[in-house]
């Protein structure tokens, strides 16, 4: 996020797109509610009439996967209505003239023809956002889990740059990070293109720096992404170490994923449960859980916070850092004999330009947002205040692209996926919490009542959902939360593996899977057959 969570209470206009914040980030949503109570206006763009949509002053019911078109249409209106921030554009951005040309044809009517959102509503949204002095954008995976995830984000940046809504309190472009430490995983260098602190591996100076630190020359070429690695299992990739990820349930195209992991010669998993993924491993190493370990998480606002051990681990379970260190030493690697997480974190900070100003002791207060470039620096709650990291903010000339697969006669419905409040990701943890299991015992396919009738389904009955990759059976819930023509399910339940259906494509730049869009067909399951099969 460019701005701290506290800024969520400050905007005059809030534009939420592709985020089911009240369910996926509930505590952040309470801050947003405070802004609304203060009189802020809320615009929500989402294919589903989610709770957030019901709270909105203006709801844009967008067709799944058409975000870029909607955002280009809004940018067109901001320019046409002269709602731009001239001084900001002149001093902080580049490419404005070209953007104006690029937006010429991207009228709200054009955007309506693709997104299904009425042109008048697009105009209203653009005017509301563009004329506000303090407008903030919030988004989640509904923007990034598409083959055009990068274009979606760039199109959002255009809106903020045009109207100067960045680098100040109550503004900004704010992706809400999903998992508790997904930000920290990237910060720590667990990326194929960057060392710790987002230092590119392709930069010879960085290669030299890490050769000095690690005592080994590391490739100047980027590594491959996890998506590519899974594709190449059994081909060029023959050994894998996975720490704490239930890949088999969380990743798209489940059959392909299981096949990939089974074709490895050597597969090691570190986890706290024998997950569907761990069951495929040659060696499973038991790790400590979150309550049994010391370390740090970095949250969605780039705040570095201390995690503290409260109980002893069960049996022989060990901290992840210890397990990996032992493995490395047994392979003959030097520089891995740590006796606690303290020197590990201090080494991380020393090698990272964005954590350089802190260490284990200083981080204890939880007050620092990175970057903290030097000792004594107070940290950076708000990014881009006086300048962008790479000089000027660049406008992007994005184009709308269709999703990897589009609906047709055979697969006439859009399936979109997401999270639910009561469960978390693949439920290896929440599924083992007695209370939460009662709140959400099974998955339901949310279908508009008209589609329930059209496809011969029954509210509470069973349906078979199929895509070009697989089929699953799931109970039907008739609801107007789903628009006509679009159905929704979460990927939380291993017994309803929705990701057996998804996986039609990936963003070519980030390799993020298009989990948000998948054409499907649905048909009723004859209930007698189901009983007999039981």
């Amino acid at each position, binding site marked *: 996020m460019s701005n701290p*969570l506290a800024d969520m209470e400050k905007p005059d206009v809030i534009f939420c797109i592709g985020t089911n914040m009240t369910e996926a980030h509930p505590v952040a949503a309470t801050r947003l509610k405070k802004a609304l109570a203060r009189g802020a206006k809320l615009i929500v763009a989402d294919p589903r009439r989610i709770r957030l949509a019901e709270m909105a002053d203006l709801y844009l019911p967008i067709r799944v996967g058409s975000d870029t078109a909607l955002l280009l249409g809004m940018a067109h209106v901001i320019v046409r209505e002269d709602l731009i921030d001239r001084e900001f554009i002149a001093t902080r951005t580049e490419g404005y003239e070209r953007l104006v040309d690029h937006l010429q044809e991207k009228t709200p009517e054009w955007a309506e023809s693709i997104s299904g959102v009425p042109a008048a509503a697009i105009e209203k949204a653009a005017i509301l956002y563009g004329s506000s002095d303090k407008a903030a954008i919030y988004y989640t995976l509904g923007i990034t889990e598409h083959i055009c995830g990068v274009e979606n984000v760039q199109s959002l940046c255009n809106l903020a740059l045009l109207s100067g809504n960045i680098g100040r309190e109550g503004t900004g472009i704010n992706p*809400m990070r999903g*998992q*508790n*430490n*997904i930000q920290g*995983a*990237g910060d720590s*260098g*667990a*990326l194929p293109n960057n060392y710790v602190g987002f230092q590119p591996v392709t930069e010879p100076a960085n290669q030299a720096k890490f050769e000095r630190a690690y005592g*080994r*020359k*590391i490739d100047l*070429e980027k*590594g*491959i*992404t*996890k998506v590519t690695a899974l594709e190449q299992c059994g081909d*060029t*990739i*023959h*050994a*894998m170490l996975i720490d*704490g*990820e239930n*890949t088999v349930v*969380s990743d798209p195209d489940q059959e392909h994923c299981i096949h990939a992991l089974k074709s490895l*010669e050597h597969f090691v998993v570190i986890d706290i*449960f024998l997950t569907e993924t761990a069951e495929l491993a*040659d060696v*499973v190493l038991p790790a400590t*859980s979150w*309550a049994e*370990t010391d*370390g740090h998480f*970095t*949250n*969605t606002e780039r*705040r570095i916070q201390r995690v*503290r051990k*409260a*109980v002893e681990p069960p*049996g*022989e379970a060990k901290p*992840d*850092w210890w397990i*990996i*260190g032992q493995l490395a030493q047994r392979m003959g690697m030097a*520089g891995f004999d740590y006796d606690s997480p303290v020197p*590990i974190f201090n080494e*991380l900070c020393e090698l990272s330009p964005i954590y350089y100003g802190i260490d284990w002791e200083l981080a204890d207060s*939880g007050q620092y947002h990175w970057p903290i470039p030097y000792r004594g620096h107070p940290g950076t709650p708000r990014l881009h205040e006086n300048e962008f990291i790479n000089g000027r903010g660049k406008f992007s000339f994005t184009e709308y692209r269709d999703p990897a697969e589009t609906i047709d006669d055979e697969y006439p419905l859009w399936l979109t996926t997401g999270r639910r409040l*009561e469960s*978390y990701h693949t439920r290896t*943890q929440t599924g*083992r919490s007695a209370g*939460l299991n009662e*709140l959400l015992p099974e998955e339901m396919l949310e279908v508009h009542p008209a589609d329930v009738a059209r496809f011969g389904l029954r509210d509470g009955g069973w349906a078979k959902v199929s895509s070009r990759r697989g089929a699953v059976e799931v109970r039907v819930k008739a609801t107007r939360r789903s628009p006509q023509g679009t159905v929704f399910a979460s990927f939380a339940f291993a017994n309803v593996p929705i990701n057996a259906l998804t996986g039609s494509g990936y963003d070519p730049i980030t390799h*993020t899977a298009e989990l948000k869009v998948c054409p499907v067909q649905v048909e009723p399951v004859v209930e007698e057959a189901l009983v007999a099969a039981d």
Partner: protein
Amino acid sequence: MTKDILMNKTASSSAFSEQRRIQHFKTTRTICGYCGVGCALDLVTRDNRIIAVHPAFDGPANEGALCVKGQFAYDYVHHADRLTYPLVRGADGQLRRATWDAALERAAQGFLDVMQKHGRHAAYGVASGRTPSEANYMMQKFIRVGFGTNYIDNCSRA
């Protein structure tokens, strides 16, 4: 709510055991392990078990708020399904209990064998979005130092 339950419990005990009970409570300030908001909370523990979660009113991200997951979904920590010893796949294809020594040896040897047979670019590491940064840092260092490659990623793409 949690507090009430505790009070009822202690009210029915004798003054002596109440005192002992209180002495055995421990609170630990930590951060919720579920989503990226990063709510601060206090884990209340007794006899090595978590018995309650209290939201931290001075938590910078949450200022005293927690959602149902942060507030209640901690009993997985003590679930009977937790892995409590290493497992190694035997010749018969079954995963079996092993000592740490044997499991680490097998894990290490497997990577060395693959590297010798197929080269440095045949191994890959996937770090977690759930574990602390120290674990992620170790994962990337393991791949970079062990193989000299950048064949490391985390689970943010799916």
